[in-house]
Protein backbone atom coordinates (compact mmCIF):
# COMPACT_ATOMS: atom_id res chain seq x y z
CA UNK A 1 0.00 0.00 0.00
CA UNK A 2 1.34 3.43 -0.95
CA UNK A 3 0.29 6.53 1.00
CA UNK A 4 0.60 9.99 -0.53
CA UNK A 5 -0.04 13.10 1.55
CA UNK A 6 0.35 16.72 0.51
CA UNK A 7 -0.76 19.86 2.28
CA UNK A 8 -0.52 23.59 1.81
CA UNK A 9 -1.85 26.91 3.03
CA UNK A 10 -3.76 29.11 0.58
CA UNK A 11 -4.19 32.78 1.49
CA UNK A 12 -7.91 32.95 0.77
CA UNK A 13 -11.05 32.31 2.82
CA UNK A 14 -12.07 28.69 3.13
CA UNK A 15 -15.38 29.40 1.37
CA UNK A 16 -13.57 30.47 -1.79
CA UNK A 17 -11.34 27.37 -1.86
CA UNK A 18 -14.20 25.04 -1.01
CA UNK A 19 -16.39 26.53 -3.75
CA UNK A 20 -13.83 25.25 -6.28
CA UNK A 21 -13.03 21.86 -4.73
CA UNK A 22 -16.60 21.00 -3.83
CA UNK A 23 -17.55 20.76 -7.50
CA UNK A 24 -16.77 17.10 -8.24
CA UNK A 25 -17.19 17.75 -11.95
CA UNK A 26 -15.18 20.97 -12.13
CA UNK A 27 -11.57 19.82 -12.46
CA UNK A 28 -11.45 20.50 -16.20
CA UNK A 29 -12.00 24.19 -15.40
CA UNK A 30 -8.99 24.56 -13.12
CA UNK A 31 -6.72 21.49 -12.86
CA UNK A 32 -3.89 21.58 -15.43
CA UNK A 33 -3.80 17.77 -15.74
CA UNK A 34 -7.48 17.35 -16.58
CA UNK A 35 -8.66 18.06 -20.13
CA UNK A 36 -12.29 17.00 -19.76
CA UNK A 37 -14.65 15.93 -17.02
CA UNK A 38 -18.16 14.55 -17.47
CA UNK A 39 -20.59 13.10 -14.97
CA UNK A 40 -22.18 9.79 -15.83
CA UNK A 41 -25.89 9.00 -15.81
CA UNK A 42 -27.04 12.58 -15.33
CA UNK A 43 -25.98 12.64 -11.69
CA UNK A 44 -25.47 15.91 -9.84
CA UNK A 45 -21.99 17.15 -9.01
CA UNK A 46 -22.69 16.83 -5.27
CA UNK A 47 -24.59 13.55 -5.46
CA UNK A 48 -22.88 10.83 -3.47
CA UNK A 49 -22.15 7.88 -5.75
CA UNK A 50 -21.76 10.08 -8.84
CA UNK A 51 -19.05 8.94 -11.26
CA UNK A 52 -16.89 11.42 -13.19
CA UNK A 53 -15.15 10.55 -16.41
CA UNK A 54 -11.77 12.25 -16.71
CA UNK A 55 -9.77 12.63 -19.88
CA UNK A 56 -6.28 13.71 -18.88
CA UNK A 57 -4.14 16.14 -20.91
CA UNK A 58 -1.80 13.18 -21.50
CA UNK A 59 -4.64 11.20 -23.10
CA UNK A 60 -5.46 8.65 -20.40
CA UNK A 61 -9.02 8.14 -19.24
CA UNK A 62 -10.20 7.35 -15.75
CA UNK A 63 -13.47 7.04 -13.88
CA UNK A 64 -13.76 8.19 -10.28
CA UNK A 65 -16.65 7.85 -7.88
CA UNK A 66 -17.67 10.32 -5.15
CA UNK A 67 -17.77 8.42 -1.85
CA UNK A 68 -18.51 11.24 0.56
CA UNK A 69 -18.94 15.01 0.57
CA UNK A 70 -19.35 17.16 3.65
CA UNK A 71 -20.13 20.87 3.70
CA UNK A 72 -19.71 20.67 7.46
CA UNK A 73 -16.15 19.34 7.48
CA UNK A 74 -15.27 20.75 4.04
CA UNK A 75 -14.06 17.35 2.95
CA UNK A 76 -14.68 14.88 0.17
CA UNK A 77 -13.51 11.36 -0.64
CA UNK A 78 -13.44 9.56 -3.95
CA UNK A 79 -12.23 6.27 -5.39
CA UNK A 80 -10.88 5.32 -8.80
CA UNK A 81 -13.22 2.73 -10.27
CA UNK A 82 -11.48 2.31 -13.65
CA UNK A 83 -8.26 3.78 -14.96
CA UNK A 84 -5.68 3.67 -17.75
CA UNK A 85 -3.14 4.62 -15.05
CA UNK A 86 -2.43 1.54 -12.90
CA UNK A 87 -3.58 2.93 -9.54
CA UNK A 88 -5.37 0.10 -7.78
CA UNK A 89 -7.69 0.32 -4.76
CA UNK A 90 -7.15 4.07 -4.87
CA UNK A 91 -9.08 6.13 -2.32
CA UNK A 92 -8.34 9.83 -1.85
CA UNK A 93 -9.50 12.51 0.53
CA UNK A 94 -9.44 16.30 0.23
CA UNK A 95 -10.01 18.26 3.41
CA UNK A 96 -9.98 21.97 4.18
CA UNK A 97 -9.67 23.75 7.51
CA UNK A 98 -9.83 27.47 8.25
CA UNK A 99 -6.76 29.30 9.51
CA UNK A 100 -8.53 31.66 11.90
CA UNK A 101 -5.28 33.53 12.52
CA UNK A 102 -5.24 35.41 9.21
CA UNK A 103 -8.17 34.17 7.08
CA UNK A 104 -6.30 31.51 5.10
CA UNK A 105 -7.15 27.89 4.36
CA UNK A 106 -5.18 24.76 5.28
CA UNK A 107 -5.64 22.15 2.55
CA UNK A 108 -4.76 18.47 2.65
CA UNK A 109 -4.97 15.91 -0.15
CA UNK A 110 -4.28 12.32 0.86
CA UNK A 111 -4.59 8.94 -0.83
CA UNK A 112 -3.76 5.28 -0.45
CA UNK A 113 -3.41 2.86 -3.32
CA UNK A 114 -1.68 -0.29 -4.57
CA UNK A 115 0.77 -0.13 -7.46
CA UNK A 116 2.20 -2.78 -9.75
CA UNK A 117 5.54 -4.16 -8.56
CA UNK A 118 8.38 -1.72 -9.07
CA UNK A 119 6.20 1.25 -9.99
CA UNK A 120 5.22 2.55 -6.52
CA UNK A 121 7.71 5.45 -6.46
CA UNK A 122 6.96 6.62 -9.96
CA UNK A 123 3.19 6.56 -9.37
CA UNK A 124 3.48 8.19 -5.94
CA UNK A 125 5.43 11.07 -7.50
CA UNK A 126 2.88 11.41 -10.30
CA UNK A 127 0.01 11.60 -7.83
CA UNK A 128 1.81 13.88 -5.36
CA UNK A 129 3.29 16.40 -7.78
CA UNK A 130 1.27 15.99 -10.96
CA UNK A 131 -2.12 15.89 -9.27
CA UNK A 132 -2.04 17.27 -5.71
CA UNK A 133 0.67 19.95 -5.73
CA UNK A 134 -0.26 21.06 -9.25
CA UNK A 135 -3.89 21.21 -8.12
CA UNK A 136 -3.04 23.32 -5.08
CA UNK A 137 -1.08 25.76 -7.25
CA UNK A 138 -3.93 26.08 -9.75
CA UNK A 139 -6.42 26.79 -6.96
CA UNK A 140 -4.05 29.25 -5.32
CA UNK A 141 -3.74 31.17 -8.58
CA UNK A 142 -7.49 31.14 -9.09
CA UNK A 143 -8.58 32.37 -5.66
CA UNK A 144 -5.88 34.94 -5.10
CA UNK A 145 -6.47 36.69 -8.45
CA UNK A 146 -9.73 38.56 -9.22
CA UNK A 147 -12.60 37.05 -7.23
CA UNK A 148 -14.98 35.27 -9.62
CA UNK A 149 -18.02 36.18 -7.54
CA UNK A 150 -17.83 39.92 -8.04
CA UNK A 151 -15.93 40.69 -11.24
CA UNK A 152 -18.40 43.14 -12.74
CA UNK A 153 -18.65 45.40 -9.72
CA UNK A 154 -14.95 45.18 -8.97
CA UNK A 155 -14.10 46.95 -12.19
CA UNK A 156 -16.24 49.92 -11.18
CA UNK A 157 -14.26 50.73 -8.04
CA UNK A 158 -13.77 54.46 -8.01
CA UNK A 159 -14.71 57.44 -5.91
CA UNK A 160 -18.25 56.21 -5.42
CA UNK A 161 -20.27 53.34 -6.80
CA UNK A 162 -23.64 54.08 -8.37
CA UNK A 163 -26.62 52.21 -7.05
CA UNK A 164 -30.36 52.35 -6.46
CA UNK A 165 -32.22 52.50 -3.18
CA UNK A 166 -35.82 52.78 -2.04
CA UNK A 167 -35.96 55.86 0.18
CA UNK A 168 -38.50 58.22 1.75
CA UNK A 169 -38.60 62.01 1.52
CA UNK A 170 -41.05 62.33 4.43
CA UNK A 171 -42.81 60.04 6.93
CA UNK A 172 -46.01 58.46 5.65
CA UNK A 173 -47.68 55.54 3.89
CA UNK A 174 -46.10 52.79 1.79
CA UNK A 175 -46.12 54.97 -1.34
CA UNK A 176 -43.58 57.30 0.24
CA UNK A 177 -41.04 54.59 -0.68
CA UNK A 178 -39.59 55.79 -4.00
CA UNK A 179 -36.50 54.85 -6.02
CA UNK A 180 -33.52 57.13 -5.45
CA UNK A 181 -30.06 57.11 -7.01
CA UNK A 182 -27.29 56.60 -4.50
CA UNK A 183 -23.50 56.53 -4.45
CA UNK A 184 -21.74 54.08 -2.14
CA UNK A 185 -18.40 55.67 -1.18
CA UNK A 186 -15.05 53.88 -1.13
CA UNK A 187 -14.85 52.17 2.29
CA UNK A 188 -12.86 54.14 4.86
CA UNK A 189 -11.00 52.64 7.84
CA UNK A 190 -13.10 49.89 9.43
CA UNK A 191 -15.67 49.96 6.64
CA UNK A 192 -16.82 47.53 3.96
CA UNK A 193 -18.69 48.03 0.68
CA UNK A 194 -21.28 45.41 -0.24
CA UNK A 195 -23.05 44.43 -3.45
CA UNK A 196 -26.37 43.43 -1.91
CA UNK A 197 -28.26 40.41 -3.23
CA UNK A 198 -31.25 40.08 -0.86
CA UNK A 199 -32.79 42.44 1.70
CA UNK A 200 -34.99 41.46 4.63
CA UNK A 201 -38.30 43.27 5.23
CA UNK A 202 -39.23 43.67 8.90
CA UNK A 203 -42.04 45.35 10.77
CA UNK A 204 -39.55 47.80 12.23
CA UNK A 205 -39.07 49.15 8.68
CA UNK A 206 -42.74 50.20 8.74
CA UNK A 207 -42.11 52.09 12.01
CA UNK A 208 -39.14 53.82 10.40
CA UNK A 209 -41.23 54.80 7.37
CA UNK A 210 -44.11 56.17 9.44
CA UNK A 211 -41.84 57.97 11.90
CA UNK A 212 -43.03 55.91 14.87
CA UNK A 213 -39.37 55.09 15.55
CA UNK A 214 -36.89 57.90 15.01
CA UNK A 215 -34.28 55.57 13.56
CA UNK A 216 -34.61 57.38 10.25
CA UNK A 217 -34.86 61.12 9.58
CA UNK A 218 -36.12 61.83 6.05
CA UNK A 219 -34.78 61.93 3.49
CA UNK A 220 -33.38 58.49 4.12
CA UNK A 221 -33.37 54.81 3.27
CA UNK A 222 -35.00 52.27 5.64
CA UNK A 223 -34.01 48.64 6.14
CA UNK A 224 -31.85 46.90 8.75
CA UNK A 225 -31.10 43.51 7.23
CA UNK A 226 -29.41 42.36 4.05
CA UNK A 227 -27.08 39.86 2.48
CA UNK A 228 -24.46 40.49 -0.17
CA UNK A 229 -20.93 40.08 -1.43
CA UNK A 230 -17.92 42.07 -0.23
CA UNK A 231 -16.77 44.40 -3.03
CA UNK A 232 -13.90 46.00 -1.13
CA UNK A 233 -12.77 46.65 2.42
CA UNK A 234 -11.21 49.64 4.14
CA UNK A 235 -7.96 49.68 6.14
CA UNK A 236 -7.94 47.66 9.35
CA UNK A 237 -10.73 45.25 8.43
CA UNK A 238 -9.46 41.76 9.21
CA UNK A 239 -12.45 39.43 9.48
CA UNK A 240 -13.76 39.99 5.93
CA UNK A 241 -12.29 39.52 2.48
CA UNK A 242 -13.20 40.53 -1.05
CA UNK A 243 -15.74 38.22 -2.66
CA UNK A 244 -16.96 36.83 0.65
CA UNK A 245 -20.70 36.31 1.29
CA UNK A 246 -21.84 38.28 4.30
CA UNK A 247 -24.94 39.53 6.05
CA UNK A 248 -26.04 41.97 8.72
CA UNK A 249 -29.12 42.68 10.82
CA UNK A 250 -28.81 45.84 12.88
CA UNK A 251 -29.13 49.60 12.86
CA UNK A 252 -28.25 52.01 11.30
CA UNK A 253 -30.95 51.91 8.64
CA UNK A 254 -30.15 51.92 4.94
CA UNK A 255 -30.49 48.34 3.77
CA UNK A 256 -33.07 48.96 1.00
CA UNK A 257 -30.28 49.48 -1.54
CA UNK A 258 -28.35 47.65 -4.23
CA UNK A 259 -24.98 48.70 -2.85
CA UNK A 260 -23.95 49.92 0.58
CA UNK A 261 -20.86 51.11 2.48
CA UNK A 262 -21.05 50.49 6.23
CA UNK A 263 -19.15 49.60 9.39
CA UNK A 264 -17.46 46.23 8.85
CA UNK A 265 -17.85 45.36 12.55
CA UNK A 266 -21.59 44.93 12.00
CA UNK A 267 -21.13 42.51 9.11
CA UNK A 268 -20.77 38.77 9.63
CA UNK A 269 -19.51 36.12 7.19
CA UNK A 270 -22.24 33.66 6.20
CA UNK A 271 -21.71 29.91 6.20
CA UNK A 272 -21.95 28.46 2.67
CA UNK A 273 -24.78 26.20 3.66
CA UNK A 274 -27.13 29.12 4.37
CA UNK A 275 -28.19 30.72 1.09
CA UNK A 276 -28.75 34.44 0.49
CA UNK A 277 -32.54 34.34 0.55
CA UNK A 278 -32.63 32.31 3.77
CA UNK A 279 -30.17 34.60 5.51
CA UNK A 280 -31.98 37.77 4.40
CA UNK A 281 -35.28 36.28 5.56
CA UNK A 282 -34.00 34.89 8.82
CA UNK A 283 -31.08 36.84 10.22
CA UNK A 284 -32.92 39.60 12.09
CA UNK A 285 -35.85 37.39 13.08
CA UNK A 286 -33.56 34.53 14.08
CA UNK A 287 -31.27 36.82 16.10
CA UNK A 288 -34.36 38.25 17.81
CA UNK A 289 -35.59 34.78 18.71
CA UNK A 290 -32.12 33.90 19.99
CA UNK A 291 -31.79 36.80 22.43
CA UNK A 292 -35.43 36.67 23.51
CA UNK A 293 -35.25 32.96 24.39
CA UNK A 294 -31.66 32.78 25.62
CA UNK A 295 -30.79 36.20 27.03
CA UNK A 296 -33.89 38.25 27.94
CA UNK A 297 -35.47 35.17 29.52
CA UNK A 298 -33.51 31.92 29.28
CA UNK A 299 -36.39 29.50 28.72
CA UNK A 300 -36.11 26.37 30.82
CA UNK A 301 -37.55 22.91 30.46
CA UNK A 302 -40.97 22.65 32.07
CA UNK A 303 -41.91 26.34 31.76
CA UNK A 304 -45.12 27.37 30.04
CA UNK A 305 -44.65 30.07 27.42
CA UNK A 306 -47.30 32.19 25.69
CA UNK A 307 -46.36 33.51 22.24
CA UNK A 308 -48.47 36.04 20.36
CA UNK A 309 -48.50 36.04 16.55
CA UNK A 310 -47.08 32.49 16.48
CA UNK A 311 -47.54 32.26 12.69
CA UNK A 312 -45.43 35.36 12.00
CA UNK A 313 -41.75 35.45 11.13
CA UNK A 314 -40.38 35.78 14.68
CA UNK A 315 -43.37 33.93 16.17
CA UNK A 316 -42.74 30.71 14.31
CA UNK A 317 -39.07 30.70 15.29
CA UNK A 318 -40.01 31.38 18.93
CA UNK A 319 -42.46 28.44 18.90
CA UNK A 320 -39.94 26.03 17.35
CA UNK A 321 -37.09 27.02 19.60
CA UNK A 322 -39.11 27.24 22.85
CA UNK A 323 -40.60 23.79 22.18
CA UNK A 324 -37.09 22.44 21.55
CA UNK A 325 -35.96 23.93 24.87
CA UNK A 326 -38.61 21.85 26.61
CA UNK A 327 -41.25 24.51 27.27
CA UNK A 328 -44.99 24.00 26.89
CA UNK A 329 -45.85 26.46 24.12
CA UNK A 330 -49.19 28.26 23.80
CA UNK A 331 -49.77 30.37 20.70
CA UNK A 332 -52.33 33.18 20.56
CA UNK A 333 -53.48 34.00 17.05
CA UNK A 334 -56.46 35.21 15.02
CA UNK A 335 -57.44 32.53 12.49
CA UNK A 336 -57.64 28.77 12.07
CA UNK A 337 -55.14 28.97 9.19
CA UNK A 338 -52.58 30.72 11.39
CA UNK A 339 -53.37 28.27 14.20
CA UNK A 340 -52.39 25.39 11.90
CA UNK A 341 -49.08 27.10 11.15
CA UNK A 342 -48.48 27.64 14.87
CA UNK A 343 -49.12 23.96 15.63
CA UNK A 344 -46.82 22.97 12.77
CA UNK A 345 -44.14 25.13 14.40
CA UNK A 346 -44.42 23.28 17.68
CA UNK A 347 -47.15 25.12 19.62
CA UNK A 348 -48.76 22.61 21.97
CA UNK A 349 -51.93 24.71 22.40
CA UNK A 350 -53.40 27.50 20.30
CA UNK A 351 -55.78 30.17 21.55
CA UNK A 352 -58.19 31.81 19.14
CA UNK A 353 -60.56 34.74 19.82
CA UNK A 354 -63.77 33.24 21.22
CA UNK A 355 -66.38 33.67 23.89
CA UNK A 356 -63.74 33.25 26.60
CA UNK A 357 -61.06 35.87 27.08
CA UNK A 358 -57.42 35.08 26.37
CA UNK A 359 -56.61 34.93 30.08
CA UNK A 360 -59.51 32.55 30.75
CA UNK A 361 -58.35 30.25 27.96
CA UNK A 362 -54.79 30.38 29.33
CA UNK A 363 -56.05 29.51 32.81
CA UNK A 364 -58.06 26.59 31.40
CA UNK A 365 -54.93 25.20 29.71
CA UNK A 366 -52.66 25.78 32.72
CA UNK A 367 -55.14 24.50 35.30
CA UNK A 368 -55.63 27.97 36.72
CA UNK A 369 -51.95 28.81 37.19
CA UNK A 370 -51.17 31.07 34.24
CA UNK A 371 -48.01 31.09 32.13
CA UNK A 372 -44.40 31.63 33.23
CA UNK A 373 -43.31 33.76 30.28
CA UNK A 374 -45.09 35.81 27.62
CA UNK A 375 -43.52 37.05 24.39
CA UNK A 376 -45.79 39.91 23.35
CA UNK A 377 -45.15 42.10 20.31
CA UNK A 378 -48.82 43.06 19.88
CA UNK A 379 -48.71 45.95 22.37
CA UNK A 380 -51.79 48.06 23.08
CA UNK A 381 -54.43 45.38 22.44
CA UNK A 382 -52.68 42.61 24.35
CA UNK A 383 -50.84 44.17 27.28
CA UNK A 384 -53.66 44.03 29.85
CA UNK A 385 -54.54 40.47 28.82
CA UNK A 386 -50.89 39.47 29.15
CA UNK A 387 -50.71 40.80 32.71
CA UNK A 388 -53.84 38.78 33.54
CA UNK A 389 -52.55 35.59 31.90
CA UNK A 390 -49.24 35.46 33.81
CA UNK A 391 -48.58 33.09 36.69
CA UNK A 392 -47.22 34.56 39.95
CA UNK A 393 -43.60 35.75 39.46
CA UNK A 394 -44.17 35.50 35.71
CA UNK A 395 -42.10 37.39 33.15
CA UNK A 396 -43.77 39.61 30.55
CA UNK A 397 -41.52 40.42 27.62
CA UNK A 398 -42.97 43.22 25.55
CA UNK A 399 -40.86 43.45 22.41
CA UNK A 400 -43.13 45.28 19.98
CA UNK A 401 -46.39 47.17 19.50
CA UNK A 402 -47.95 46.05 16.23
CA UNK A 403 -51.40 47.17 17.43
CA UNK A 404 -50.23 50.52 18.77
CA UNK A 405 -48.51 52.17 21.68
CA UNK A 406 -49.10 50.57 25.07
CA UNK A 407 -49.40 53.97 26.71
CA UNK A 408 -48.79 54.57 30.40
CA UNK A 409 -49.22 51.82 32.94
CA UNK A 410 -49.32 51.82 36.71
CA UNK A 411 -46.42 49.64 37.73
CA UNK A 412 -47.92 49.19 41.19
CA UNK A 413 -50.47 46.83 39.64
CA UNK A 414 -47.64 44.45 38.66
CA UNK A 415 -47.12 43.74 42.38
CA UNK A 416 -50.36 41.77 42.50
CA UNK A 417 -48.38 38.92 40.96
CA UNK A 418 -44.73 40.03 41.41
CA UNK A 419 -44.50 40.42 37.67
CA UNK A 420 -41.18 41.05 35.92
CA UNK A 421 -41.50 43.28 32.88
CA UNK A 422 -38.87 43.49 30.13
CA UNK A 423 -38.87 45.90 27.21
CA UNK A 424 -35.80 44.71 25.24
CA UNK A 425 -34.37 46.61 22.29
CA UNK A 426 -32.66 44.63 19.52
CA UNK A 427 -29.94 47.29 19.28
CA UNK A 428 -28.63 46.73 22.80
CA UNK A 429 -28.21 43.00 22.25
CA UNK A 430 -26.37 43.45 18.96
CA UNK A 431 -24.17 46.52 19.44
CA UNK A 432 -20.77 44.82 19.55
CA UNK A 433 -19.19 42.31 17.17
CA UNK A 434 -18.78 39.89 20.11
CA UNK A 435 -22.50 39.93 20.87
CA UNK A 436 -23.42 39.55 17.20
CA UNK A 437 -20.98 36.68 16.82
CA UNK A 438 -22.32 34.80 19.83
CA UNK A 439 -25.94 35.27 18.75
CA UNK A 440 -25.37 34.29 15.12
CA UNK A 441 -23.22 31.32 16.06
CA UNK A 442 -26.07 29.83 18.08
CA UNK A 443 -28.60 30.75 15.39
CA UNK A 444 -26.60 29.09 12.60
CA UNK A 445 -26.20 26.02 14.80
CA UNK A 446 -29.95 25.93 15.42
CA UNK A 447 -30.59 26.15 11.67
CA UNK A 448 -28.04 23.38 11.01
CA UNK A 449 -29.57 21.12 13.62
CA UNK A 450 -33.06 21.90 12.27
CA UNK A 451 -34.14 23.24 15.65
CA UNK A 452 -35.52 26.20 13.72
CA UNK A 453 -36.50 26.32 10.07
CA UNK A 454 -36.41 29.55 8.09
CA UNK A 455 -39.43 29.34 5.78
CA UNK A 456 -38.95 30.34 2.13
CA UNK A 457 -39.63 34.07 2.02
CA UNK A 458 -42.06 35.91 -0.21
CA UNK A 459 -39.92 37.72 -2.81
CA UNK A 460 -40.46 41.24 -4.15
CA UNK A 461 -38.39 43.39 -6.47
CA UNK A 462 -36.57 46.10 -4.54
CA UNK A 463 -38.53 48.68 -6.57
CA UNK A 464 -41.75 47.05 -5.28
CA UNK A 465 -40.86 47.73 -1.63
CA UNK A 466 -44.14 49.66 -1.16
CA UNK A 467 -46.09 46.54 -2.11
CA UNK A 468 -44.14 44.50 0.43
CA UNK A 469 -44.97 47.06 3.14
CA UNK A 470 -48.67 47.07 2.25
CA UNK A 471 -48.82 43.28 2.54
CA UNK A 472 -47.04 43.36 5.89
CA UNK A 473 -49.26 46.09 7.34
CA UNK A 474 -52.39 44.43 5.95
CA UNK A 475 -51.56 41.31 7.97
CA UNK A 476 -51.76 39.30 4.72
CA UNK A 477 -48.44 37.66 5.34
CA UNK A 478 -47.27 34.66 7.24
CA UNK A 479 -43.51 34.21 7.45
CA UNK A 480 -40.93 36.52 5.94
CA UNK A 481 -40.62 38.84 2.95
CA UNK A 482 -37.45 39.83 1.12
CA UNK A 483 -36.52 42.36 -1.55
CA UNK A 484 -34.28 41.40 -4.46
CA UNK A 485 -32.41 44.09 -6.45
CA UNK A 486 -34.32 44.40 -9.75
CA UNK A 487 -31.44 43.28 -11.97
CA UNK A 488 -31.02 40.08 -9.91
CA UNK A 489 -34.76 39.32 -9.71
CA UNK A 490 -35.94 36.42 -11.77
Amino acid at each position, binding site marked *: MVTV*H*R*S*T*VIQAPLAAVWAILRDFNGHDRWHPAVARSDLEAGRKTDQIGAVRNFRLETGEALREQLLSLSDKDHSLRYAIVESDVPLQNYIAEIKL*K*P*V*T*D*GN*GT*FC*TWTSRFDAPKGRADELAALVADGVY*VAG*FEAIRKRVTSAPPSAPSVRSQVGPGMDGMAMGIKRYGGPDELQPVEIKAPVPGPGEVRLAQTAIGVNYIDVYCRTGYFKLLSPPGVPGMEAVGTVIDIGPGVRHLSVGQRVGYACPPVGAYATVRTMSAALVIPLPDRIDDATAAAGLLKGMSAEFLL*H*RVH*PVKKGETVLIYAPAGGVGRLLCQWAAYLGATVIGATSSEEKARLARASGAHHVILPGSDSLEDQVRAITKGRGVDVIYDAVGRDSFAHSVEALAPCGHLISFGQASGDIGTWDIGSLAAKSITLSRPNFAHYTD*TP*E*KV*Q*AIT*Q*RLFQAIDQRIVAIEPARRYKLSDAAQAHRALEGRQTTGASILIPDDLYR
Partner: protein
Amino acid sequence: MTHVYASSIIPASVDQVWKVVRDFNALPGWHPAIAESRIEEGRPADQVGCVRAFRLKDGGFIREQLLALSDYDFSCSYAILESPMGVENYVAVMKLSPVTDGNRCFAEWYADFDCAPEREAELTASIGGGVFQGGFDALKSRFGG
Protein backbone atom coordinates in the same frame (compact mmCIF):
# COMPACT_ATOMS: atom_id res chain seq x y z
CA MET B 1 -22.60 23.64 24.33
CA THR B 2 -20.28 26.34 23.09
CA HIS B 3 -17.56 25.60 20.57
CA VAL B 4 -14.45 27.76 20.24
CA TYR B 5 -11.99 27.12 17.43
CA ALA B 6 -8.68 28.77 16.61
CA SER B 7 -6.01 27.79 14.14
CA SER B 8 -2.71 29.18 12.95
CA ILE B 9 0.39 28.51 10.92
CA ILE B 10 3.58 28.11 12.97
CA PRO B 11 6.85 28.64 11.05
CA ALA B 12 8.58 25.44 12.20
CA SER B 13 8.30 21.74 11.47
CA VAL B 14 5.61 19.73 13.19
CA ASP B 15 8.31 17.83 15.11
CA GLN B 16 9.86 21.03 16.46
CA VAL B 17 6.55 22.46 17.61
CA TRP B 18 5.31 19.15 19.00
CA LYS B 19 8.45 18.89 21.13
CA VAL B 20 7.42 22.13 22.85
CA VAL B 21 3.68 21.60 23.29
CA ARG B 22 3.69 17.86 23.94
CA ASP B 23 4.88 18.32 27.52
CA PHE B 24 1.70 18.64 29.55
CA ASN B 25 3.65 20.35 32.34
CA ALA B 26 5.46 22.88 30.14
CA LEU B 27 2.90 25.66 29.73
CA PRO B 28 4.93 28.22 31.75
CA GLY B 29 7.81 27.62 29.33
CA TRP B 30 5.92 28.77 26.27
CA HIS B 31 2.47 30.21 27.03
CA PRO B 32 2.57 33.86 28.10
CA ALA B 33 -0.45 33.63 30.42
CA ILE B 34 0.90 30.84 32.65
CA ALA B 35 3.09 31.49 35.69
CA GLU B 36 3.76 28.03 37.12
CA SER B 37 2.67 24.43 36.68
CA ARG B 38 3.12 21.06 38.35
CA ILE B 39 1.82 17.54 37.78
CA GLU B 40 -0.12 16.13 40.71
CA GLU B 41 0.92 12.95 42.52
CA GLY B 42 4.34 13.01 40.90
CA ARG B 43 3.10 11.34 37.74
CA PRO B 44 4.92 11.59 34.40
CA ALA B 45 3.58 14.45 32.25
CA ASP B 46 2.79 12.09 29.38
CA GLN B 47 0.76 9.63 31.44
CA VAL B 48 -2.81 9.80 30.23
CA GLY B 49 -4.98 10.65 33.21
CA CYS B 50 -2.39 12.84 34.94
CA VAL B 51 -3.49 16.21 36.30
CA ARG B 52 -1.63 19.49 35.84
CA ALA B 53 -2.22 22.17 38.42
CA PHE B 54 -1.12 25.59 37.24
CA ARG B 55 -1.39 29.23 38.14
CA LEU B 56 -2.09 32.01 35.67
CA LYS B 57 -0.10 35.24 35.79
CA ASP B 58 -3.32 36.98 36.84
CA GLY B 59 -3.48 34.64 39.85
CA GLY B 60 -6.18 32.21 38.67
CA PHE B 61 -5.68 28.56 39.64
CA ILE B 62 -6.64 25.79 37.20
CA ARG B 63 -6.49 21.99 37.27
CA GLU B 64 -6.66 20.08 34.01
CA GLN B 65 -6.60 16.37 33.29
CA LEU B 66 -4.89 14.80 30.30
CA LEU B 67 -7.51 12.78 28.40
CA ALA B 68 -5.52 11.75 25.35
CA LEU B 69 -2.05 12.19 23.93
CA SER B 70 -0.92 10.98 20.54
CA ASP B 71 2.60 11.19 19.14
CA TYR B 72 1.17 9.69 15.96
CA ASP B 73 -1.46 12.42 15.36
CA PHE B 74 0.47 15.19 17.17
CA SER B 75 -2.61 15.80 19.29
CA CYS B 76 -3.49 16.22 22.91
CA SER B 77 -6.84 16.48 24.66
CA TYR B 78 -7.61 17.63 28.18
CA ALA B 79 -10.50 18.55 30.45
CA ILE B 80 -10.78 21.29 33.06
CA LEU B 81 -11.38 19.86 36.53
CA GLU B 82 -11.28 23.13 38.43
CA SER B 83 -11.03 26.77 37.33
CA PRO B 84 -12.29 30.28 38.12
CA MET B 85 -13.61 30.67 34.55
CA GLY B 86 -17.19 29.55 35.16
CA VAL B 87 -17.17 26.80 32.54
CA GLU B 88 -18.48 23.26 32.80
CA ASN B 89 -17.79 20.11 30.81
CA TYR B 90 -14.82 21.86 29.23
CA VAL B 91 -12.86 19.59 26.90
CA ALA B 92 -10.14 20.97 24.64
CA VAL B 93 -8.01 19.54 21.85
CA MET B 94 -4.72 20.81 20.48
CA LYS B 95 -3.53 19.28 17.25
CA LEU B 96 -0.66 19.88 14.85
CA SER B 97 -0.55 18.92 11.18
CA PRO B 98 2.45 19.14 8.84
CA VAL B 99 2.34 21.52 5.89
CA THR B 100 4.23 19.53 3.26
CA ASP B 101 5.29 22.42 1.04
CA GLY B 102 7.46 24.32 3.52
CA ASN B 103 8.98 24.23 6.97
CA ARG B 104 5.81 25.13 8.86
CA CYS B 105 2.87 23.43 10.48
CA PHE B 106 -0.85 23.95 10.93
CA ALA B 107 -1.92 24.22 14.56
CA GLU B 108 -5.50 23.86 15.80
CA TRP B 109 -6.79 24.45 19.29
CA TYR B 110 -10.44 24.09 20.12
CA ALA B 111 -12.77 23.52 23.04
CA ASP B 112 -16.35 22.63 23.84
CA PHE B 113 -17.93 23.73 27.10
CA ASP B 114 -21.11 24.82 28.86
CA CYS B 115 -21.48 28.22 30.50
CA ALA B 116 -24.09 30.78 31.51
CA PRO B 117 -25.59 32.15 28.27
CA GLU B 118 -24.76 35.76 29.08
CA ARG B 119 -21.07 34.87 29.49
CA GLU B 120 -20.75 32.99 26.22
CA ALA B 121 -19.45 35.90 24.14
CA GLU B 122 -16.90 36.97 26.75
CA LEU B 123 -15.64 33.41 27.27
CA THR B 124 -15.47 32.75 23.54
CA ALA B 125 -13.32 35.85 23.16
CA SER B 126 -11.06 35.18 26.15
CA ILE B 127 -10.52 31.48 25.39
CA GLY B 128 -10.26 31.77 21.60
CA GLY B 129 -8.41 35.08 21.58
CA GLY B 130 -6.50 35.05 24.86
CA VAL B 131 -5.65 31.42 25.56
CA PHE B 132 -5.53 29.85 22.09
CA GLN B 133 -4.44 32.74 19.88
CA GLY B 134 -2.16 34.02 22.67
CA GLY B 135 -0.44 30.62 22.68
CA PHE B 136 -0.14 30.60 18.89
CA ASP B 137 1.37 34.09 18.91
CA ALA B 138 3.96 32.96 21.45
CA LEU B 139 4.83 29.89 19.36
CA LYS B 140 5.09 31.98 16.22
CA SER B 141 7.49 34.43 17.79
CA ARG B 142 9.43 31.62 19.47
CA PHE B 143 10.07 30.11 16.04
CA GLY B 144 10.83 33.46 14.47
CA GLY B 145 7.49 34.14 12.77
